[in-house]
């Protein structure tokens, strides 16, 4: 993570001097200079970096140049919306993907299986912004049955976490963005499950299981699927991290008040403290999820032990 911070700082050396933008259109050159000093932007690069690091170590990631409030708070405020969207999408993709993957692998030649495989190809290859725009046009504009954007009504949980899960409006607002995100994830997980299943179903121990006269359910779900799940869980973990951190396109199309939306605005405004804090948080989230996935392995496969 230290490396990440350094790279961020180096990049910002090349994206121009923010004091011009902070000072605003009507500021005179002398006033721009004053702003540069007030924000410490006149100091040499390495001093800025060390100062920032020492503050960051104490949990202070600086204030946004644009809204002038703490950068980390600005991001954490957006966290609940993104987390709800991402987890719903990944859970849906995981359960549906594994289920359909199993269905397809058991009866690979049925027309239903072929249909599923074909649509999964479409799911992988259609870009998010296209799916998003199409869904809005069909369900919100033409049919008028689902809201086109936003998060709907929210309820505050534990004085901090506004949730959209508990209101009807919150749930209806969730449908289209989740569908948009799920398309790709579902297709990938489905294909991964199918490939794994087909391989495992040909193994000797499965034949043994069949020979023992075990029920189909037991063979497929207990003996075969469990061994397939490890790559699937890894993939879902990666996906969860990715959606949490980079669901920028979907959040922008649906005007979802999440972190991706904030990141995009901050990049346009070159709001460096927010961008750096965001990247720090992103690397933290992804690291955490990877550790979580490792722990899940042990649960899925008792042979894996971390001593």
């Amino acid at each position, binding site marked *: 993570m230290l490396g990440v911070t350094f790279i961020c700082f180096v990049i910002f050396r090349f*994206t*121009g*001097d923010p004091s*011009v*933008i*902070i*000072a*605003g*259109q*009507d*500021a*005179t*050159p*002398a*006033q721009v200079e*004053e*702003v540069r*000093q*007030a*924000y410490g932007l006149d100091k040499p690069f390495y001093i800025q970096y060390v100062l920032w690091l020492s503050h960051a170590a104490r949990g202070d990631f600086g204030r946004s140049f*644009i*809204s*002038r*409030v*703490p950068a980390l*708070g*600005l991001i954490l*405020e*957006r966290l609940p919306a993104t987390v709800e969207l991402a987890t719903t999408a990944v859970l849906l993709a995981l359960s549906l993907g594994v289920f359909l993957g199993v269905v397809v692998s058991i009866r690979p030649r049925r027309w239903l299986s072929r249909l599923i495989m074909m649509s999964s190809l479409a799911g992988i290859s259609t870009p998010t912004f296209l799916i998003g725009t199409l869904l*809005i*046009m069909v369900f*919100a*504009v033409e049919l*008028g*049955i*689902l*809201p*086109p*954007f*936003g*998060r709907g009504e*929210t309820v505050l949980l534990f004085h901090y976490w*506004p949730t959209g899960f508990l209101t*009807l*409006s919150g749930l*209806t607002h969730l449908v289209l963005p989740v569908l948009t995100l799920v398309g790709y994830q579902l297709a990938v997980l489905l294909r991964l499950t199918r490939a794994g299943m087909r391989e495992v179903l040909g193994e000797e121990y499965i034949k043994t299981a069949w020979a023992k006269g075990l029920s189909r359910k037991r063979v497929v779900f207990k003996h075969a699927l469990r061994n397939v799940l490890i790559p699937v869980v890894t993939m879902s973990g990666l996906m969860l991290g990715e959606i949490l951190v980079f669901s920028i396109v979907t959040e*922008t*199309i*649906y*005007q*979802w*008040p*999440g972190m991706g*939306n*904030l990141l995009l*605005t901050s*990049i*346009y*405004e*070159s709001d460096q403290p927010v961008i750096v804090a965001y990247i720090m948080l992103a690397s933290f989230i992804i690291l955490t999820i990877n550790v979580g996935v490792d722990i899940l392995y042990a649960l899925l496969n008792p042979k894996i032990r971390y001593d």
Partner: protein
Amino acid sequence: MRKRRMALLSGLLFACLVCASPTLAASPLILADDTPPTTMDPAADNSDSTCSVLVNVFDGLLAREGKEGKIVPGLAEKYEHPDALTWKFILRQGVKFHNGNPLTSADVKFSFERLADPKLSKWLETGQAIASIETPDERTIIFKTKNPTPWFISNVHQLFIVSKKDVESRDAGDVGVKPMGTGPYKFVEWIKGSHLKFTANEAYWGGAPKIKQVELKIITEPATRFAALASGSVDLVAGLPLELFEQIQQNPKLEILSRPSRRVIFLALGNKAGTPLADVRVRRAIYLAINEDEIIQKVMQGKASPAAQLADSASTGFNPTLKRLPFDPEKSKALLKEAGYEKGFEITLAGPNDRYVNDAKIAEAAVQYLNKVGIKAKLDVKPKAVFFPEVSSGDKFDFYLLSWLDGAYDSARGISTNLATYNKEKGWGGWNGARFSDPEIDALMDQAAVMVDLAERDKLLQKAHVVIQEKVPLIPLHCGIDLYGLVKDRGVKFTPRPERWLVYKEIEKK
């Protein structure tokens, strides 16, 4: 399974009913805009998107009303201007903040002092122009400016007054997200990236507003803004995307309102010695080579009006008789020949690609016109976050696309900031990225700096725009058009304002 499916279906059905149910009487007004406000602290931002929100919660000493932005009394019921440096305001009686505290001159003084703090303020130029603020009694404020500041009065409508007690009692972060003022609407909530909610201030000094609840949705994505309007999720959308104009026009449920934008798009030129641009004939040749009518028709799809000067019709100094130099490629070639550049020369046109409507496409078109008269022009467009600091640094470009809109309705600032010789003491040339320099324009700006009488000032600046056209430090292109979309059957009445603010008390709804 069947049961569950039924539950799902009925759930969906219910959702449809909720979405489609007709709005009841005294329904809230739901608006959508394209750019989010950045803060709720009036000192911390001067962008239109932020002011457009804050004007509903706060008041300035004066206000601007309606279609033409005429100055009317605000928190001050009158003002005097006894000498060139002094501005005296008398506050209206009985004005109260939303928390019930009375407004006093101390609040005004405090609000203006905040503007001078570089850690806090985006109004430094205004804040630091003031030498002292006196408050002889509860209702009187006397400003003394350091130098004669002619635009002082035309700017105070956007300098909003906060409560001293309230701001001092909270930390800066809280002030930046929860505004509390004297305005017609009280702040309810701001969910960043989503919406803001307001409720009517029944005790407003100008009378309680008719619409009681207002919700402002911020939708940055153009296609989604259109979807919000077409699906009827909002009553009024500001910032309709140009590329969806025809789709909206064909939709019988929607109505389009438009108003010429105050923003002038222009190409700026340098005149550094030793470059081809040092010769005024070359600069004029570039002007004549550009077919602005075609840019308006093809790039802007007819949604722009040609601009002849660095001012819009609402600004002091706008010269109504000035016309653009007509497109004339033959004359352009002749001028180039006269100046000794018959075979052309190399030049790069820089510009932003994410700031103004079709900015990169306009620059691209300009480059092609120049190539037609033999100038070997290249294009260099980049994101505004990189481009703006490069312009302001003054050593990167000789030729670039930029735009100007003066919030104070005075065209002198546009000239002194973009075209006057770079001068740190005078505060000139901050955006003069090509470091153009001309003594005659500078002299006019010196005169304008001390000319406070509005009629005289208007005359002087009108003359300045004629001189500028002769010297060609810039090629004005066009003013865009602000587009708004309405859902027809909601009974919403709205008149677009010059500065694009949404002032809720001026909007009517059945």
